[in-house]
């Protein structure tokens, strides 16, 4: 809590430096044809996932709230930017096709035609009310932050005020996510049902720019936002606010009887986490090209938690490393490049078996290396763990275990 920002966060310059270096290397390699456009996109998306993992670590690793709702904020961020991308791009296409007509089309005609194009798949031509701001980029960018934050604020206020904690809170956040997904699957929810929003990789007005260039733009913006997100999270957790968050994680009673409004702190960090996750989603989905409600299914929430756990919770770089390593290894295993392995009667198809490997590594990390991959950094920086003879660091369910802490 004391000393300058850099003294409190020695990892910040290192992380920013490595991030910048990696971005430059990938850019140079992409320019010389060393890496494919799709791989650049994979890397850009990985950076967004790392940002989402950072936000997850903020609530789980530091405040002890295992939120399974963060993936909903992620998808909502994608939906918000996707609404503008689809509207603006369809508008351009429609305007072009109508321009050849003898009588120039009225704005209302263009709007109707755009509506027909976008909502034709769900049997409608009308813009639903929630698309009111879809024509404006600044408005949708604001919504990228506002919608997830507002959802987190309202949900968090209800949940924290009732003092729901631990596994019950996790179940509640999961229920929220699933309910939102099921709602968005409906055509009348106004976000094109199970089709979701697609074609997001095409930037409006940038038809002449090849995807190889667009992918680099997104890589740079993702790296920039990840860097900014890292600095922001480091600032938040290294001060007194962070000390209180960790206090809440390990021993909520003590914090409360010191006079701190525990619910207010939880709400603040949950909302901040939702806002950061929304931004991550808004950068991710234009690279993925499509966002639909299936993105919010429970497996996705679990993934987010697994990344942070494998990376090491309560360490910002741990969450980042976890998300990057696991998602890159995952795309390697599921890409189909790896030949199947024949073991007598059993045939190991990696695409299917990857989840088993992931599950086993999650169990292994939890049992044998609770500091996760981030713990490797601790080995290198020679941090010790405290000798507590097997005692945990607090009575609360989210509290640190002896093996996770550092002396």
């Amino acid at each position: 809590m004391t000393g300058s920002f850099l003294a409190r966060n020695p990892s910040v310059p290192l992380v920013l430096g490595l991030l910048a270096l990696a971005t430059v290397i990938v850019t140079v390699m992409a320019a010389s044809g060393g890496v494919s456009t799709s791989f650049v996109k994979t890397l850009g998306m990985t950076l967004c996932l790392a940002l989402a993992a950072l936000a997850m670590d903020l609530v789980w690793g530091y405040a002890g709230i295992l939120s399974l709702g963060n993936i909903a904020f992620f998808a909502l961020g994608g939906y918000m930017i996707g609404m503008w991308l689809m509207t603006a791009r369809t508008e351009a296409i429609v305007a072009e096709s109508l321009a050849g007509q003898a009588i120039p089309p009225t704005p209302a005609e263009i709007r109707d035609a755009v509506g027909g194009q976008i909502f034709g798949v769900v049997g409608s031509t009308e813009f639903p009310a929630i698309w009111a701001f879809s024509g404006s980029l600044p408005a949708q960018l604001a919504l990228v932050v506002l919608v997830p934050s507002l959802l987190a604020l309202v949900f968090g206020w209800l949940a924290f005020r009732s003092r729901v904690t631990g596994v019950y809170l996790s179940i509640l956040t999961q229920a929220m996510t699933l309910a939102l997904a099921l709602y968005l699957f409906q055509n009348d929810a106004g976000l094109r049902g199970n089709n979701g929003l697609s074609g997001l990789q095409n930037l409006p007005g940038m038809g002449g720019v090849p995807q190889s260039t667009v992918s680099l733009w997104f890589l740079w913006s993702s790296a920039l936002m990840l860097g900014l997100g890292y600095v922001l999270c480091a600032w938040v957790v290294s001060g007194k606010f962070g000390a209180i968050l960790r206090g809440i994680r390990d021993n909520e009673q003590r914090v409360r009887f010191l006079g701190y409004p525990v619910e207010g702190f939880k709400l603040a960090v949950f909302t901040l986490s939702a806002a950061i996750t929304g931004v991550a989603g808004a950068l991710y989905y234009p690279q993925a090209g499509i966002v639909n409600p299936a993105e919010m299914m429970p497996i996705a929430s679990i993934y987010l938690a697994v990344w942070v756990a494998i990376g090491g919770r309560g360490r910002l770089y741990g969450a980042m490393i976890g998300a990057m390593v696991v998602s890159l290894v995952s795309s390697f295993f599921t890409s189909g490049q790896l030949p199947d392995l024949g073991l007598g009667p059993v045939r190991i198809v990696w695409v299917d078996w990857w989840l088993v490997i992931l599950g086993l590594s999650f169990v292994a990390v939890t049992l044998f290396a609770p500091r996760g991959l981030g713990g490797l950094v601790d080995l290198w920086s020679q941090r010790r763990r405290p000798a507590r003879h097997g005692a945990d660091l607090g009575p609360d369910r989210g509290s640190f275990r002896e093996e996770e802490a550092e002396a």
Partner: protein
Amino acid sequence: MNTLLEVSGVSVSFDGFRAINNLSFRIGKAELRAVIGPNGAGKTTFMDIVTGKTRPDKGRISWGEKGLSLLGLSEARIAREGVGRKFQKPTVFEDQTVQSNLIVSLKNRRGPFAALFYRPGSGDFERVAALAGKIGLTAQLSRKAGELSHGQKQWLEIGMLLAQEPRLLLVDEPAAGMTLAEREKTTDILVEAAKTRAVVVVEHDMEFVRRLNCRVTVLHEGSVLAEGSLDHVTSNPDVIDVYLGR
């Protein structure tokens, strides 16, 4: 006497069991008080009620000069009003240094945004150093609280309470599990603290209570059985019956 806290006619039951039964209690502004009683006498429940953790079924609790009612206030609000509570088991932030524990406890604005932009100033460090001296943890300031011995954790928790600058300190069995030397030091800290504020010590151990050398309140079945000096209450036949005599 100048009253700081007055609890009158408070009752609470859990599933029909009357944990506190028409309890009345008052304490002055700078007073040390020991509360003793057999298991299940309602000592901890009494603290729960004062600190807002448990809501009583009936009764009044009035606080300070203005007679503010503590009923219905949140735990955090009551703590901000100046009631500090030490738990039976040492509860400190084990993942953080002793210094960080004390800085977090210092009386400052408690909101999330105030905490976000808070930077400890030189005055804060001086107060932390003074507190650390008082509780004998000056040499341990940069150590993780989780590594401290049991006794040191107890002192740290008392130090954290003092950092809050409470007007009333509720201390639940501070001497449990301590060595003799540690007990003596704990007594000194509490007696010193009671010079400027009210301190209520719940304790099982008679020797410890004797060393505190203060007024004693005996609880039994949720209400006050006797009150007075230790010698006075220990000669009370009722007290001998329920608690000491066996």
